[in-house]
């Protein structure tokens, strides 16, 4: 399975990355090589094998739905590129 330039462009869009044309070419070539290598996984018969997402099994821990210590507003806003002391400011989303 090889990955085309167009597929890389599409995936980059999904990942909110803007690749320049020459970067796109290089990336497609490298990813093609990497994905080609991944083909080796098809040599393993995994019929009936349960996938693992977590190597150390745990029950999801629950807690009471109670207020707990949290960041103060000014701490949460301190690293904001743009803020008005109440909110994070961003370009218009709707309209």
């Amino acid at each position: 399975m090889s990955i085309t330039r167009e597929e890389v462009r599409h995936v980059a869009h999904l990942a909110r990355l803007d690749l320049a044309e020459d970067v796109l070419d290089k990336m497609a070539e490298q990813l093609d090589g990497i994905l080609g290598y991944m083909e080796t996984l098809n040599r393993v018969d995994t019929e009936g094998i349960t996938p693992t997402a977590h190597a150390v099994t745990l029950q999801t821990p629950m807690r009471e739905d109670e207020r707990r210590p949290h960041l103060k507003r000014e701490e949460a806003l301190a690293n904001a590129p743009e803020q008005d002391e109440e909110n994070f400011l961003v370009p218009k989303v709707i309209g």
Partner: protein
Amino acid sequence: MNLYDLTIEEAHQRLVQGDLSAVTLTRALLDRIEAVDPHIGAYITLDAEGALEQAGEADRRIAAGHTTPLTGIPLGIKDVICTKGLRTTCGSRLLENFIPPYDAAVMERLREAGAVILGKLNMDEFAMGSSTENSAYHITRNPWHPDHIPGGSSGGSAAAVAAGMCLGALGSDTGGSIRQPASHCGVAGLKPTYGRVSRYGLVAFASSLDQIGPMSKSVRDCALIMNVISGHDKRDSTSVPEPVPNYADLGDNGFRGLRVGLPREYHQADGLDPDVRQSMASAIETVRGLGAETVEVSLPHTEFAVAAYYIIAPCEASSNLARYDGVRYGVRSRDHEDMLDMFRRTRTAGFGPEVQRRIILGTYALSAGYYDAYYGKASQIRSLIIEDFRRAYESCDVLLSPVAPTPAFKIGEKTDDPLTMYMSDVFTLSANLAGIPGMAIPCGLSSNGLPIGLQIMGPHFSEDRLMNVAHHFEQHTDFHRQKPDL
């Protein structure tokens, strides 16, 4: 002896005896950093003022009799761990102005113990890499040979410990990022069992694989750090409520009567450097001499570990790194026209090429139509790798293997072909996939003077045993006492 050459254990004894102050010790480390870091580049951010303040506080605690083994001990922290009030960049331009408003769980624990934090250590960007060449700031040079990499992604941590620029360090390990640089720099490094150390405040790369761990000059020093950083944390729902033993209770006969498994796929791998092969052969002899019984075992799915890891880790990373959007923190682009444009420009300008490559790889592998073929398949292989280890541990107590196929390669040698770089992680990746602990300690030097390490792996929550046997090996060899000529 130079103060910066002390182990944590030795420094603690002198602090407690009162013939050394934490401030004097910290000054000695700061002087050492000033003298050698311009040639090595281990630190991204140095906090001399903060460190001296903390050292003063430590001296007051020591005088009042409230000392712990880490009180007054100067440590370096990999820049992927949140330190309140101290810039944390993850080796990325995207976070070059990020000052965490909170401490990671491990930092809370270190501060409570009275440790002195010297600064933040260099790393591959967002922990993606095996050479620290992917740092957006600068490269780190191997203290043993300046033209060679220190390993990665915790290259700054390993180099700082090896060069006497901290008495110990924290690193993080997702596919080998503590063990491999430890091996390349001739220091000890431990990746704990998944869930042993809280990930709260560890900037996430691959959430089912990441663990924070100690890097130091001796196994006992690793144990002292583990005693402080280990333990359950409610804020990390993958943290395991397993009791913490006293890891520093190391005994002196760890290998006696132990069954040590030698996985044939590791020891007989193609491309194993002759010096590595030689060091391993010597180490096996040593281990037998210490009373262990060695047995060949097989981990048959080893050949699929690289492929499985380099699907799973990028997939998880593509999700974790979606948060870097320029909204709440980090560097935001300036010329954007709308929100979507802001996301794209911010991320494209802020992330380096390896990070972008892995995000795209992960996004592709998780996208509709490909999920089962890639992520689903890799997750099934992961189950088989876990089963390989379980079966191996039926006939042995621990596994012994090389850490890396070769000693540290030259700077620039593998940057052209990402796949070649990925393949060099083959001996360390499986432990992360299986969640098992792995320890690296020095066991030799190559013919051109570069350190070679050995790896000991055990079942879940056997890091106490790993440190017992590693300590036993150390007691009977000299490799950990060798230092680079700087």
